[in-house]
């Protein structure tokens, strides 16, 4: 068969439609229906059967595993890499032979895209799987309701109540600072801001999203603790978190306010309602769903920050319900501390706390997106 196929490829020169001069081989196309009439003509290029990509994937996976086992390669990553390389070259070679060069490049690109997708998904899936599998045994009611007070690093037991409390307090304090400033800034940018000040603010909000969290921590450290002389506290951490939260709130609120149709504002203004009341009573309520989503996504983002917490909250094994005085803990910091102890019991606690943290953040995310879908601004068509 391959002889006739090669013949066709040569004679059509890889152009999409044959010139009719080529001998008419049976195209391996299996598509029924309208194309059946054309099957015996030369209008169609020879194509790989539809099961070919699947067969190539299976074949190269098998080859990868075989080489891995025979070559005694101990890392699964190597097996996967070998399989991927075999898959890519095999796809290119087979398609070149059967379908011609252009199709080969096309298939090669497609398989490259698919491979890159798999390559990216695998570590992320592994991350979630490891966290869940290693975390679940450690999570219990006791774990959620007790602190680490008096528990040594190598001992079993202990819990994350103090860290959970710290995280919730710090995140709430940060949002109390960041949300008003963020909302008002977004209102300024959309409703009032014209000219250079607005441009500068837009640019710096964008740049501010990229500030590393540890730099925000260092800033609060140098101002709040080293210059003004306050001690480590949950509030100091909240200050740094609020710096990280503001630009996210501004950005998302701005997007939402821009979606509010101008007719709504004009209608309200035409009725003689002052602009500030128009904004408060018409514009903001219309966009409230999207704004809530943005705020919750920002909360989810800062709830996982560790670096500023290390610098500013310092960490503690005891329950400290007062965020304004004394060291506290927080979930991400707890994970880091337990990891640093390096004992098996501590690793178990770290995984369990990581699972709680991920669940906390995913729930915030899902709720936020649920609100976004439920309260999507009705912009009309």
């Amino acid at each position: 068969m391959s002889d006739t196929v090669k013949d066709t490829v040569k004679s059509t020169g890889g152009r999409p439609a044959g010139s009719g001069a080529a001998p008419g081989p049976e195209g391996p196309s299996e598509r029924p229906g309208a194309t059946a009439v054309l099957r015996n003509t030369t209008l169609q290029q020879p194509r790989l059967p539809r099961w070919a990509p699947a067969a190539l994937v299976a074949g190269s996976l098998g080859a990868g595993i075989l080489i891995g086992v025979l070559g005694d390669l101990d890392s699964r990553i190597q097996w996967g890499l070998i399989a991927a390389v075999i898959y890519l070259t095999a796809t290119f070679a087979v398609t070149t032979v059967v379908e011609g060069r252009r199709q080969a490049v096309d298939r090669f690109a497609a398989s490259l895209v698919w491979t890159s997708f798999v390559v990216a998904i695998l570590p992320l899936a592994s991350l979630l799987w490891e966290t869940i599998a290693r975390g679940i045994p450690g999570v219990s009611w006791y774990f959620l309701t007790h602190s680490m007070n008096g528990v040594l690093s190598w001992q079993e037991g202990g819990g994350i109540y103090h860290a959970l409390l710290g995280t919730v307090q710090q995140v709430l304090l940060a949002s109390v600072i960041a949300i008003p400033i963020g909302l008002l800034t977004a209102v300024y940018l959309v409703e009032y801001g014209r000219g250079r000040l607005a441009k500068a603010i837009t640019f710096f909000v964008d740049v501010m999203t990229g500030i590393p969290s540890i730099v925000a921590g260092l800033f609060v450290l140098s101002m709040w603790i080293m210059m003004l002389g306050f001690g480590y506290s949950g509030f100091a951490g909240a200050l740094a978190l609020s710096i990280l939260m503001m630009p996210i709130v501004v950005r998302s609120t701005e997007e939402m306010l821009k979606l509010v149709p101008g007719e709504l504002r004009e209608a309200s203004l035409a009725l003689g309602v002052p602009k500030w009341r128009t904004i408060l009573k018409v514009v903001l309520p219309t966009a409230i769903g999207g704004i809530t989503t943005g705020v919750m996504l920002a909360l989810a983002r800062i709830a996982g920050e560790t670096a500023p917490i290390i610098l500013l909250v310092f960490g503690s094994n005891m329950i400290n319900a007062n965020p304004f005085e004394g060291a506290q803990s927080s979930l991400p910091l707890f994970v880091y501390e337990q990891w640093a102890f390096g004992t098996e019991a501590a690793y178990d606690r770290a995984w369990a706390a990581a699972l709680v943290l991920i669940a906390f953040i995913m729930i915030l995310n899902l709720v936020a997106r649920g609100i976004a879908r439920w309260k999507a601004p009705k912009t009309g068509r």
Partner: protein
Amino acid sequence: MPAIQTDSSPPGGLEPAPRRSSAVRPGDRIFSGLSKGAGITLLVIMAAIAVFLSIRAAVAISANEGNFLTTFEWDANANPPYFGIAVLLFGTVVSSVIAMVLAVPVAVGIALFISHYAPRRVAGTLGYVVDLLAAVPSIIYGLWGALFLVPQMTGLYSWLDQFFGWTGIFAYDNTPARSLMTVGILLAIMILPIITSVTREIFKQTPKAHEEAALALGATRWEVIRMTVLPFGRSGVISASMLGLGRALGETMAVATVLSPAFLINISLLESGGGTFAQNIASQFKEAGSMGRDALIASGLVLFLLTLLVNGAARLIIARRKEFTS
């Protein structure tokens, strides 16, 4: 969107008859003042970050006995203090560049997959999953990297050493793989979601007419992408990569957990050693005295400027592109 005129004078050059309608209402004045104030607060915070970090950094640098840029040691608590950022700069740049090199092609691949290859119904869900993954906290990436990824890498590294060990860059001594390369790989995984989501948005904006024109000329799917999508999205991909680079430069926890730090520049990327700005701050902070802290803040200032530069450039590219396309 039409600009909204509120309480300006009536159109047509008529002199405002009732005077009070042209006067700004007190409520409006307060509200616009408040919102303007909030915007200015943001600018003040940015300025304050630069100022406060610079003040502390100046204290540390003036007391420093070594050269801040070229000294290979970090003895900030000694008297007199002796420290320099050469090792940190090297580690930060190298690990971030590794992350970029690995992440950008894969991210472009995923973005293309979501925008052009995946079945329509799957594509929406995938975009959503990618966004969710961007929300996973860095400490969890760090924990996973240290306890799962590091043991997995040893096999791969000895393999690399076998074939490319002669270059020196890939020499490997079979110690635990807590090296800049592992850090780079982990950072690549971490910045994938952000690069992907920005790139995907740009790819989606490719004018449909261009794609259809290419298809009508008989182009294959890849040719469509190469001729329309990629040229259209090039600046977007560049700025997305720079945003990712900014993230990688400032990443703290993932590096602090995975890297086994040492104050030396190791030519081999696979062997442990080196450090990054953020990692050094996080791991030295608890032992630092007051001079030690100032020194850490000085290194933080360098990091701040570095990310400012990278992010600012990325945003400028995006802004220029916006002007160009709209």
